[in-house]
């Protein structure tokens, strides 16, 4: 049991605090993508992908591309192209070890999110990869997710957080840049952070 100094609750105690879920909340969970879910995905340029290794240790990573990049190939299967990244391949290594995977898909301006849970594999099928070409780049790999659960998550979290409010964007001015964070965790001079930031802005021009 994790020791934090706080009392850890069991599910009965948690239920005692929250009460039972209401009927309609459970009814909206389905096992396939209906027309509305397909339309949601076709307009979604961003998702987070959660995976876990053999022991269940979790990892969650951002995925973004042209809207519709989480491509439904039928109502129970979606495909996600693997684009240029850091090549650490945490998510893909996890998928190989433990196929369970979950997606949380976002549409800019929309507070509801689409949750898709299922089992994934990594493939290099050439026909599939060709259909995932973007900006004349064909991905080398793709993740195929067989859907087990789909549901639209209510918008309260994004509403409370004001995620899509233009005025909220000034928050980023108060957060260190990636170069500053990198220099600090590596114990380098802050000036090296500026060099890293400049190199990153160059690297960010090549997205595919």
């Amino acid at each position, binding site marked *: 049991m994790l020791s934090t100094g706080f009392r850890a609750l069991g599910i009965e105690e948690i239920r005692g605090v929250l009460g039972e879920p209401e009927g309609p909340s459970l009814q909206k969970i389905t096992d396939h993508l209906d027309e509305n879910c*397909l*339309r949601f995905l*076709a*307009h979604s*340029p961003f998702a987070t992908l959660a995976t876990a290794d053999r022991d269940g240790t979790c990892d969650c990573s951002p995925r973004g591309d*042209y*809207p*519709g990049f989480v*491509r439904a190939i039928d109502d129970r299967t979606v495909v996600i192209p693997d684009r240029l990244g850091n090549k650490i391949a945490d998510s893909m290594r996890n998928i190989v070890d433990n196929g369970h995977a979950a997606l949380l898909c976002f549409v800019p301006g929309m507070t509801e999110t689409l949750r898709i849970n299922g089992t994934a594999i990594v493939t290099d099928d050439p*026909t599939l990869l*060709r*259909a*995932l*070409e*973007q*900006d*004349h780049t064909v991905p080398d790999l793709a993740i195929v997710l067989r859907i087990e659960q789909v549901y639209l998550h209510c918008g309260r979290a994004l509403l409370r957080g004001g995620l899509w409010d233009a005025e909220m964007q000034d928050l980023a001015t108060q957060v260190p840049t990636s170069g500053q964070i990198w220099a600090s965790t590596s114990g380098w001079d802050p000036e090296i952070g500026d060099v890293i930031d400049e190199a990153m802005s*160059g690297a960010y*021009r*090549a997205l595919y």
Partner: protein
Amino acid sequence: MRTRTGLLPLVVREITRETPDILSIRLAHPDGSPLPAWQPGAHVDLQLITRHERQYSLCGDPADTTSYRIAVRREQLSRGGSHYIHTFLRTGNIVWVRPPRNLFALGDAPAHLLLAAGIGVTPILAMARHLASTGGDWRMIVAARTRADVAFADEIAALGDRARVHVSGEDGRLDLAAVLAGIAPGTDVYACGPAAFTDALLALAPTLPEGSGIHLERFEPRRRAFGPTTAFTATAARSGVTVEVPAERSLRETLQGAGVPVEGSCLRGVCGSCAVPVLDGAVEHRDSLTTDEDSRVIYTCVSRAAPGSALVLDV
């Protein structure tokens, strides 16, 4: 992500099913104002709300200044554009359109033979309608797999005896060699269709009579092999910028990254939007538009400097 600079927001006024796989779409200015003029053979770059951008030939009437008509085939292996249009696009939606460009314009030959296969009917139909109205010597053949796959069949029929439909499922594959063998000297051939069709025509080009030429519009890049892709230096003379183009990036991307204004739409060397004049240096033309290897225009999305050469560009 693509920008919308220089693109006109147009509203989808009408979506019509022409065949099981083809929709025609009528676009207009939201307030009904006139649209930029065009000539038969012209195409537009059309960008969807998803930022997917594709090229479509205009297939309506150039005299209609208030709307454009395009036709979109559902691709089996859609990269996103045709699938979105067929599944999610609705009347009333906005799409973004770059003013028409014409890389497939009719010349003034004494006679014209117009050939289309499948969705290739779009620019060819506009050409036929134009030639029918000016009373020149012309013929058109539209090939399709089945009768149900012939888009705009009524409009083709209305053009009279000079226009005919060839249904390969009923009459066998269109014998292009026989079609070309029958043309009079000086006839220009205009053709549009899938790669197998345009490639077959190109292979027959040497059999054409004196004074005849073939003009092709392709949807897909010509498949050709090139030597290794290497880095080279390019100078944008008017911008006063010199860049090193690495092997893994295109000239267009590299110039854009350095703040040099270059457009780009198909990014596959078929649409022509990224053309830049060349002032100095040898070009390896890897696009599917250039017919003269000595051309001093470079399509920067795919073409590069010839091995060992550097380029100076008028941009």
